[in-house]
């Protein structure tokens, strides 16, 4: 069965290659974002060496790492699913002997891996020449980061699937998709690391899945989390991976029952 999913990943690779222009424009957008946030945060730091327990160097590294991670975990599965529901292609997916949402998730993984190897890794090397950042050399921290990043990816995919399948009930969920995108960028710690939020907000965010997407993996790498801190972070992520699957599966089953294939 896993062969199907490998094949799905391969196909997504091919599709990404078919749309190279998107890929090039992506490089420019991400470079700009890293540049903008770097200079913004440098201005905020001014001549202070440390804010909220993060040094200037850690902050710069955090920006680079979190954006490059975003290239990996980010995808438009929600929009794709909504689109397929709207134009009725979902019917074609249902005549195949696989779990539609699982296939979608693996398509996201194919897209993520493509950008990770052809975009994030080379991008990271370029960034490390331009901005003074501090990455660990050959170190087990990378393995921990990889695990945490993968879990972050899964949580993000699940958030996207959830947003996407809601299109079964809200036939035009463009607004929801946009709102979700901004919320994920903001609350996952991408634009503002979570330690910079007021205390009460941090408390709230602890109970939301978003920090598991970006903040936790980036912190694992930048601060080199070890021991119980690391285990704690991974556990939070793992719990969200499981918890989020429940509503997705429930909505999916309900959706299949009430499915109306639009457009004849």
């Amino acid at each position, binding site marked *: 069965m896993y062969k*199907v999913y*490998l094949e799905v990943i391969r*196909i997504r690779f091919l599709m990404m290659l078919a749309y190279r222009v998107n890929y090039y424009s992506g490089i420019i957008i991400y470079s700009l974002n890293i540049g903008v946030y770097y200079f913004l945060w440098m201005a905020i730091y001014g001549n202070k060496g440390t804010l909220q327990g993060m040094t200037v160097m850690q902050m710069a590294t955090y920006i680079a790492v979190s954006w490059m991670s975003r290239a990996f975990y980010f995808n438009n599965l929600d929009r794709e699913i909504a689109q397929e529901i709207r134009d009725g292609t979902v019917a*074609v997916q*249902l*005549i*195949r*002997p696989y779990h539609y949402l699982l296939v979608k998730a693996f398509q996201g993984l194919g897209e993520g891996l493509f950008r990770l190897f052809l975009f994030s890794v080379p991008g990271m090397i370029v960034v490390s020449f331009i901005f003074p950042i501090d990455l660990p050399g050959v170190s087990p921290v990378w393995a921990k980061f990889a695990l945490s990043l993968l879990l972050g990816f899964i949580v993000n995919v699940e958030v996207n699937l959830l947003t996407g399948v809601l299109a079964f009930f809200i036939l035009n969920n463009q607004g929801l998709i946009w709102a979700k995108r901004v919320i994920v960028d903001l609350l996952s710690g991408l634009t503002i690391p979570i330690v910079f939020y007021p205390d009460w907000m941090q408390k709230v965010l602890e109970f939301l899945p978003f920090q598991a997407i970006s903040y936790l993996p980036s912190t694992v790498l930048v601060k080199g989390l070890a021991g119980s801190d690391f285990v704690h972070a991974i556990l939070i992520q793992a719990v969200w991976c499981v918890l989020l699957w429940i509503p997705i599966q429930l909505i999916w089953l309900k959706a299949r029952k009430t499915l*109306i294939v639009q457009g004849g």
Partner: protein
Amino acid sequence: MRSIEAHGLTKEFKVYQSRPGLAGAFRDLLNRQYRVIRAVDAIDLTIDQGEIVGYIGENGAGKSTTIKMLTGILEPTAGELKVNGYDPHREREKFVRTIGVVFGQRSQLWWDIAVQESFRLLQKVYRLPDEQYKRHLGRMVEVLEIGDLLDQPVRKLSLGQRMRCELAAALIHQPPLLFLDEPTIGLDVLVKENIRRFLKEINKELGTTILLTTHDISDIEALCSRVVMLDKGRIIYDGSLTKLRLNWGGGRKIHLDFAKNVQLNELEQRTEGLPVKWEQTGQRQYIAHIHHGELAVSEVLSRVVQYVPVQEMRIEEASTEEIVRQIYQEGMTIV
């Protein structure tokens, strides 16, 4: 073995209605009114292995909805349904391995990548052994003449090219049952010909059951031995094409070319009492529309020939298309 067995199969949709005006829109927010529409109304349908059945009906008659229930996409509201021995909706993943589906209006190939990549993915999806996959695909590529298209992205194919690839994709796992939803819509005659020939071959060699919905009656004439006709969610005819023709296609036309000029009312007088209507198309050319019966044809001819010599004549049977149009216009209650 039975391919399809349905009893009292019914599908209802809730259709939400919006009240007019702004005030209505606000009221809709709180409680929405809906109306239940019965798209498919308690139909019974049994199809045996190896049959080719044409499923016809006007737009909105419930054809597509039936197909979607039979393929497990939609859950029936009521009724019993077994397809290839499975409950299509509940046992979807196991069931869909035993069917192939072609939707004429939407592609099941991956739009942006080469056709052969889609095929390869399907090979993995259906877990087909390499050798069997290659042999079967090679055969289909040959018959459908799609060898040159395999390395092209689907979006660059013409409709006819794409449709042949879709067929190959739907049959890649050699399913015993094939659903075709408007497979020849918008195709030119040569491609239609090719597709029909291919379908016949598949049916003959592999015993594939085929259920076909179409607006193109020539598809039915070329392929189907049996026709199921649907109107407003109910089956109004289920039987052979020949019988349909015999019962409702009794109408024949005799094109007559007389040796000398004849008046319309003279002909009418001569054939009085017979179920015939005359239509003048030229000075000496007439068409006799005969409503039904073999006898009437010879009777009309014998009466006319005695009176005026015939130079040329041609008897024409009503086409299936005309019959179907007639049935839909006049309605039919007998099954």
